[in-house]
């Protein structure tokens, strides 16, 4: 009877795991619409004041205390300064954001989507942004990489929350961002070359969650896999991207923007 009760409890828990997800395009907001809009606009204006034509942007989709050690944000993308044609035909200047989002209906798959700062920050846990401004040369190469469609060429729709950046078996938003950065640096969309250079020069973030827990996640939840990892579980984080660019002199600044204040990421 106790065994049967445990089975029922496990079954109920598994049903609830359809809420288990990584980077998604959020539909519900915890904050009032005007708060999100005001915050999003202030992030745009900060980046614009620094003269950033391309920058890496991140958001926090759940309480920071719940993140594994070393992770400060839950979704990362690339923002490009653009001329935007509106639905009424008018043109406006602002940032467009190039994302890899996990599919809500099938968490094991992802899709690329371009949205805008208010969409990006809709549904966040806190009004806090990560901003990495690359060097001017890298900004131009990033714009070129996006404009030439390298972000699409490099997209792998097989999603894992903890994808290993040293291979292309699975991909998450931060690994995709790193792939586009390296595509820009090396001016290539050759994935083999990008992965070789990633392994040679990039230090990923160690995921300090027990393999037992991860294996259970692997077995029961779509969009989480340990198949692409060796002995260590390592993945790309926003901070590890900043450290990579800083190490090779390709970064102007990496900051956290919150409540109108800017602080250094590290």
């Amino acid at each position: 009877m106790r065994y049967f009760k445990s089975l029922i409890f496990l079954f109920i828990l598994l049903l609830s795991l359809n809420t288990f997800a990584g980077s998604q395009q959020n539909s519900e907001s915890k904050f009032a619409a005007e708060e999100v809009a005001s915050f999003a606009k202030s992030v745009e204006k900060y980046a614009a004041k620094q003269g950033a034509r391309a920058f890496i942007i991140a958001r926090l989709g759940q309480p920071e205390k719940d993140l594994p050690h070393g992770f400060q944000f839950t979704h990362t993308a690339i923002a490009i300064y653009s001329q935007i044609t509106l639905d009424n035909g008018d043109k406006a200047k602002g940032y467009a954001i190039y994302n890899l989002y996990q599919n809500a209906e099938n968490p094991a798959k992802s899709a690329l989507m371009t949205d805008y700062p208010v969409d990006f920050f809709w549904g966040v846990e806190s009004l806090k942004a990560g901003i990495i401004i690359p060097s001017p040369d890298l900004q131009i190469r990033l714009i070129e990489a996006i404009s030439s469609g390298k972000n699409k060429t490099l997209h792998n729709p097989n999603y894992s929350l903890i994808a290993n950046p040293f291979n292309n078996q699975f991909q998450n938003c931060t690994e995709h961002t790193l792939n586009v950065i390296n595509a820009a640096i090396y001016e290539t969309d050759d994935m083999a070359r990008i992965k070789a250079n990633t392994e040679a020069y990039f230090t990923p973030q160690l995921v300090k969650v027990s393999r037992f827990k991860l294996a259970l996640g692997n077995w029961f939840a779509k969009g989480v896999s340990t198949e692409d990892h060796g002995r260590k579980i390592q993945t790309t984080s926003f901070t590890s991207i900043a450290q990579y660019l800083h190490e090779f002199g390709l970064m102007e600044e990496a900051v956290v923007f919150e409540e109108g204040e800017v602080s250094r990421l590290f």
Partner: protein
Amino acid sequence: MKRISQLFTLGLIALTSFASHAESASEHASKGSRHSALASAHSTTASAQVASGVVVVPLLVVGSTASASQAVGESLIDTASGKHKIDKHEPLEITEITITVDRSPAEQMKKSEKKG
């Protein structure tokens, strides 16, 4: 049997703690709801506007206008110096309009009618 029950309980605890590390999924809402929420919020502010973004073209040179047919490489390099034209941290212009991917309900209806 007792051991299997204990293993299942351990598995439940592990799964629950791991699930908290992922960003929460959100439910699907109608596509016009975000645009409507923003429009309602902005209706109290005379100068603010909400609009849907339709076409995006990266801008490389301050003060320039871009067209979809403009080659990205054309603006990149100054032929005399061989350097890119962006040498200084010139502040960029940002619209006051809140731009969203969502269309207004009216625009979404027009789009749906065209498809039908």
